[in-house]
């Protein structure tokens, strides 16, 4: 089975986000960039599927050369190959742009796949768009927010999280799956893996190589400004006997929050 996994480089979740003076981007210096957490589940699932079904795992990332570090991490976890889809644009928050680059790469250069694995959402853009868009542009079945995946020959079954329940969906390959926490426990890189990843060549394919021009990648979504959220005001803090503090809490719930 030929499995492709799509991964994104994002600031780690601990990051304090500072906004550039122009109000159009975030300040990237001092940020620690990592593999987006949900993409780790996607990589792990690919490695587990390879263990039972044989085949090959290739990871792709759309981004600048700085994304090579997360591709190396995926190789160190055990992926067979990595490809950088080189795009020098700064974060646009426009999912369609990324989806078009991925789709074009798959159509033009990497058409030999059985399964496309994504994270359910990239940390930062928090879009949850790219997997559905790629599925649509390629005309493939998609199951998003997946917590369990089984592949049998040319067919699969996945559990998808919805409000208060799970949908059990069946589909045929090739298909698009996006990973949710609960799917698996991502492994750590091994020392041997890290050494092998160091030596491995990671080819880069530029958006120009893919024949994508300005008009293909022009943005539909225009970022006007980025601001800090209004700070929350610190409220009332009480201390003392539980019988007293909870009376005050119930009073707060009734008088201020008006929920009971």
């Amino acid at each position: 089975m030929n499995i492709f996994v799509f991964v994104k480089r994002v600031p780690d979740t601990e990051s304090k986000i500072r906004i550039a003076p122009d109000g159009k981007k975030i300040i990237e210096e001092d940020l620690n960039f990592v593999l987006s957490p949900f993409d780790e589940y996607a990589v792990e699932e690919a490695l587990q599927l390879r263990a039972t079904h044989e085949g090959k795992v290739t990871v792709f990332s759309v981004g600048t050369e700085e994304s090579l570090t997360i591709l190396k991490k995926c190789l160190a976890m055990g992926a067979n190959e990595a490809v950088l889809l080189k795009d020098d644009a700064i974060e646009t928050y426009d999912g369609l742009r990324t989806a078009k680059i991925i789709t074009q790469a798959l159509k033009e250069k990497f058409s030999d796949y059985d399964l496309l694995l994504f994270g359910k959402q990239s940390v930062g853009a928090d879009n949850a768009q790219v997997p559905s868009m790629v599925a649509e542009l390629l005309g493939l079945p998609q199951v998003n927010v997946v917590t369990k995946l089984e592949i049998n020959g040319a067919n699969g079954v996945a559990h998808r999280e919805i409000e208060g329940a799970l949908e059990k969906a069946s589909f045929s390959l090739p298909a698009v799956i996006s990973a949710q926490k609960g799917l698996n426990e991502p492994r750590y890189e091994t020392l041997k893996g890290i050494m092998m990843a160091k030596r491995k060549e990671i080819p880069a394919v530029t958006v120009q190589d893919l024949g994508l021009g300005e008009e293909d990648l022009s943005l539909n979504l225009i970022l006007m400004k980025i601001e800090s959220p209004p700070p929350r005001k610190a409220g009332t803090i009480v201390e003392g006997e539980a019988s007293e503090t909870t009376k005050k809490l119930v009073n707060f719930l009734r008088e201020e929050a008006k929920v009971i």
Partner: protein
Amino acid sequence: MILVFMEVREGKIKKSSFEVLSEGWRRANELGTEVNAVLAGGNVEGLASSTFQYGASRAYVLEHNLLSKYSSSGFAQALFSLVQEIQPGIILLSATAMGKDLAPRLAAKLGVSMASDCTRTEVHDGTFSVVRPIFAGKALATFTFQSSPQIATLRPNVFPLNEPIEKQGEVIRKEVILTEEQIRARVEEILKEEGAELDVTEAEIVVSGGRGMKSPENFGLLKELTSIIPHSAIGASRAAVDSGWIDHQHQVGQTGKTVSPNVYMAFGISGAIQHMAGMASSKYIVAVNKDPEAPIFKVCDFGIVGDLFQVIPSLKEELKIFQRD
């Protein structure tokens, strides 16, 4: 025209769809246009007229037996045909599991970009814009759209419901042409726990437990609270989920669910940045923690410094007294 997708689950329109419709009505008035609703499913026509009281002028009904179960490809195809025909300028959906799945598929079919999980919409000089949290709410970004239709999903529980109005509208059935092959991933069944409670994303009050709960059994204390507080659900920090005390469906935060209830109550949760990411858009935050230095006290509206094992039983009694009166 603004078109609002009304999500039907278990024979009912979701409350969050009415929130979106209410917001659509407000913006349509500013833009000098109308708001219309669309319902899709196996048998949804009977629900259509309930959209008029929230401002819809028309309710489009897309019925087909292949739509009786949700599928992103089937629903996107049915909506696509309608959108091609009626050409709305703006399409809004609720950012529920279904909305998040459907909107990007529909957007890609129409060849346009979209904005996810917005918490505000605005009209300035006739231009529609949206505000959405990025970096899990650590920043807010404002976007406008270059292309048409402009598509956005709106976060549940954030937009106020309008008071129902007296309004007449028109129900319009549209023929849906769909084949079995167009349903690419088929939902075989919906697996629901016996006696499943309300989902954290849909609750008006979320009662959450963290590492301070100390054991899976103690989550029973939170369950006792949710059983006496209407429209409430149990949430959890990742520390509690990773300890195996409660299922990850309950996890709130950056790698869990984003919630914006009326009241979020955190018991034994320190307030790590990744946890706050999932609950900072709550209207009121209540914290109970024995450590007066816990970061959660910096953001809460009401805090109790104390031992949760004393606070919860006492709170239960107080609520019961209150309810009896």
